[in-house]
């Protein structure tokens, strides 16, 4: 089901007040089917831009993004996305939110499918509630259910747990891993948190300060379920924090 994603020398330049702003420079990356990839880097380094390019919400200035050898042009339900901000449709209840993509694509059994994914994130009991009645963690669980309901091969996640408290965050990370193992999807997960990346990822991409380049790639060879205090994780954590520290110092010196 999952597919092979390739980014070939992708550069993104924005026009802002007639000034060219380089957001991403020369990003080349291959993501294997079913891989869990985390992207980490200083604020404003273009992590979100990277996800938006893969989602097809933006187009690269130069370079190519290909899925199984086919160029990506425009958004598609085969690449689901969970946003950092709460993105549920406030006028639809939980069930109707999860049904959204299925409804657009004309699925006949949208209710069944939606209920299946809602129970996967443990929220079947609140299916008739409206988004304003949910906690932050529940909102993001619904958003995850909604993004996988149309069965995308790639799931793009833009700091989805950034605004959640630490405890909720730990729980929802485990749930995400469980879903990832059941549903067999490629996940590209952007985060600020080194701990989160080390807990979740098969591989971590570390990006430089803006304009974003890939400065390091780390394979996390630790069996799941992982201990957050595993010696390998602690060692890698130290290394990543040092790398990021150098980048953040560069920002401060500019």
């Amino acid at each position, binding site marked *: 089901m999952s597919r092979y994603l390739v980014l070939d020398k992708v550069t993104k330049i924005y026009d802002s007040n007639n000034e060219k702003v380089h957001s991403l420079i020369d990003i080349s990356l291959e993501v294997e089917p079913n891989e869990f990839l985390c992207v980490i880097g200083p604020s404003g380094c273009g992590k979100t831009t990277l996800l938006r390019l893969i*989602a097809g*919400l933006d187009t690269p200035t130069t370079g190519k993004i290909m899925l199984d050898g086919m160029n990506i042009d*425009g*958004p*598609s*339900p085969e*690449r*689901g*996305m969970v*946003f950092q*901000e709460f*993105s549920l*449709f*406030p*006028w*639809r209840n939980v069930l109707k939110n999860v049904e*959204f*993509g299925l*409804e*657009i*694509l004309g699925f006949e059994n949208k209710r069944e499918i939606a209920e299946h994914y809602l129970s996967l994130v443990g929220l079947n009991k609140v299916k008739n509630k*409206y*988004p*304003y*009645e949910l906690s932050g963690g529940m909102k993001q669980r619904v958003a995850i259910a*909604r*993004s996988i309901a*149309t069965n995308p091969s790639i799931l793009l996640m833009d700091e989805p747990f950034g605004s959640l408290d630490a405890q909720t965050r730990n729980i929802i990370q485990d749930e995400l891993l469980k879903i990832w193992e059941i549903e067999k999807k490629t996940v590209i997960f952007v985060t600020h948190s080194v701990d989160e990346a080390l807990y979740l990822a098969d591989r971590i991409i570390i990006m430089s300060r803006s304009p974003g380049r890939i400065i390091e790639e780390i394979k996390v060879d630790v069996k799941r379920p992982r201990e957050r205090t595993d010696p390998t994780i602690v060692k890698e954590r130290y290394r990543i924090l040092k790398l990021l520290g150098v980048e953040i110092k560069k920002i401060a010196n500019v």
Partner: protein
Amino acid sequence: MMGKMRKKWVWLIPLIIAIILWEVIAIIINDPSLLPRFSMVIISFYELAIKGYLHPDISMSLYHFGIGLLAAFCVGVPLGILMGWFKKIFILLDPVVELIRPIPPLAWIPLIIAWIGLTHHAAGFIIFIGALFPIMISTYTGIKDTPKVLIDTGKVLGCTTDLKMIRYIALPYSLPSIATGTKMGMGVGWMCVVAAEMFGVSESGLGYRLFSEFYQWNQLDYVIAYMLLIGIIALILDRLFRYFVEDKLFKWKKGIVK
């Protein structure tokens, strides 16, 4: 229990004070051609009801109001959607809208008579002009303010055309705003009823009666009775709209507004 009752009826106090003041001042002035007493207005109102004025006048005015409001809704909502969603259409239409908007509905009367004569539709047109802009501008604002993240979410979930994005995202998001605009449009439109009927498109109607008969007869008590009636009908329309439309649309907004 007592406290709750008190809170529920507290709005009556300023009303009663105003009525008492009115009555007392009218007694002191003692000139019904300047200010008829409240009690006299009530009696006049009763007289008018018995004479059978109220029913045809209210129906006629609601008819004119209905024509104008329906037209304003059917023109204002689509135009507002187009202006809110397509920047190019906004750039093209905005100057025209801002030029026409400040012209008072009253100023249109000569032109309307020349165009469509003394018909019910002429009255409806005046009300249409009054109701159009609040509806159109609220629709436009609602569509334009649709959060980007909701539009992006829609795109990722398969809304590939403008039509789908409007239908599934921007329009449902804007419904409360459209409802508010419609309510404002109803308010302005109803205010135009007197003006719309005063140039004689019909032989009945609240505005026609007030201006072309009661005023000409120097019956100030009748005039005030009809003024109050116009106010009361507006209040009822507003409450009905709030109960049947707004409360239902605003249900999901609770978390955002209050």
